[in-house]
């Protein structure tokens, strides 16, 4: 793996760790994981149209996040059912229109060679996600405790929710190259779940979430190179190992 790819995967991991902290605290692990599946049909269509697969994935993720956002006000049961149905269908449709090697790459990720443009765009997108979480963390915290209180404190709750979900979708899009449609959700959720177990305040949670995702990505990438395996499964295995270690520790 070259330096550009290492830089981009590190930036993606930090963004995933940060965005995941709020996903775990909002209890949207299921929706978040399922949301990443929606990228697959986008990749399939993009490949068929001979455009960059990341563009197809990003477009579908945008609409997937829009769907979750529009469903969030409804009852929890209906939302979860609908998310389960829609996103599983997306996986099925995506698998039907993508095939062979390309399907495996889309599902599990394959870093491949990066162009200058891809690196620059990826780094800018990761920086945007990190800046969003860091700058809007106060509004996100108040919204998490009570959307009504957040409204009285001047927060536009619907807009903030929309922006958060789009940042989540952007993070998924960033990580598809490394982890694929099936595993990217895990890099967002698992390090954040680790951080939640180890933290006693918000700053700790964000710092541990970002660090755990970064360590899992670097460790998994190194292990993949050493074992001559795909990176995605080993990154998620490293993240899961970190989480399992916290089970031996009394919760903070």
């Amino acid at each position, binding site marked *: 793996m070259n330096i550009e790819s290492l830089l981009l995967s590190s930036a993606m991991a930090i963004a995933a760790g940060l965005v995941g902290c709020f996903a775990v605290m909002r209890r949207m692990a299921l929706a978040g994981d399922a949301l990443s599946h929606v990228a697959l049909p986008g990749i399939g269509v993009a490949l068929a149209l001979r455009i960059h697969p990341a563009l197809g994935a990003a477009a579908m993720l945008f609409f997937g996040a829009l769907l979750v956002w529009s469903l969030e006000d409804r009852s929890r049961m209906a939302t979860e059912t609908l998310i389960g149905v829609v996103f599983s269908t997306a996986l099925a449709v995506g698998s039907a229109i993508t095939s062979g090697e390309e399907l495996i790459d889309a599902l599990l990720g394959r870093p491949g060679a990066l162009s200058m443009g891809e690196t620059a765009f990826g780094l800018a997108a990761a920086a945007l996600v990190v800046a969003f979480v860091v700058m809007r963390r106060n509004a996100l*915290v108040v919204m998490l405790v009570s959307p009504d209180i957040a409204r*009285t404190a001047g927060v536009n709750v619907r807009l903030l929710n929309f922006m958060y979900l789009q940042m989540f979708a952007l993070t998924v899009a960033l990580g598809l190259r490394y982890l694929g449609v099936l595993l990217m959700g895990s890099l967002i959720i698992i390090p954040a779940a680790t951080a939640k177990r180890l933290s006693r305040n918000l700053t700790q949670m964000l710092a541990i979430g970002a660090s755990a995702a970064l360590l899992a990505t670097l460790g998994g990438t190194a292990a993949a190179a050493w074992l001559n395996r795909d990176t995605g499964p080993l990154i998620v295995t490293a993240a899961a190992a970190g989480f399992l270690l916290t089970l031996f520790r009394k919760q903070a």
Partner: protein
Amino acid sequence: MDPLLRVDRLSLRLGSADVLRDVSFSVETGASLAIIGPNGAGKTVLLKALAGVLPVSAGAIHWAGGVRIGYVPQKLDITRDVPITGVDFLHARLALTHDTTTAIADVLASVDLSMDAAALPIGALSGGQFQRLLMAFALAGHPTVLLLDEPTAGVDEPGQARLNELVSRLQRERGMTVMLVSHDLSIVYRYATAVLCLSPYRACAFGRPREILTPELLREIYGSPLAFHIHEH
């Protein structure tokens, strides 16, 4: 002099349900308004509308100029097993309004919550401590009006008495106007200067506690006989 708050023929629909119909009342500066009524009467919805959280369907809410509202919601049904401390929560409040002069320690002192308790994750706080934290959050915005939605729900009896005393003290010290939803009629009788009764069975009633808290009216409002006696002291 114009009242601090004037509500004119307020109606509010949620989905297909008429939650509030034709509610009118007014509140003077420094008053203590208690909002009572059975479950489903629209007390919480009214308070949210007053706080600007819910849009009204018809009628109007007129606040006097310069009013700052502090809102303390009903017992929150939230995921509290999160590593967010009381200090994180209050810091977020002050940062949102770019308030660099208010100290978190001062806000905590005003609601008798220790810094040690506020440094704990919110899930580790007792019901009473969490309500105090919510009150501290509201006070951090330097409100002139405090809207409280059943602040003592889910709190043990000694804790309820302390919270009621706290609200009363804050009102005296800061000259705030308080509007409070409560199911506890004895507290209403003790602290309120005005009472608004909402009921799904009849038009709302508004007036002084002695005028409103009569057995006949309460029976009408709650739609069933109610065992409640006013003890004259």
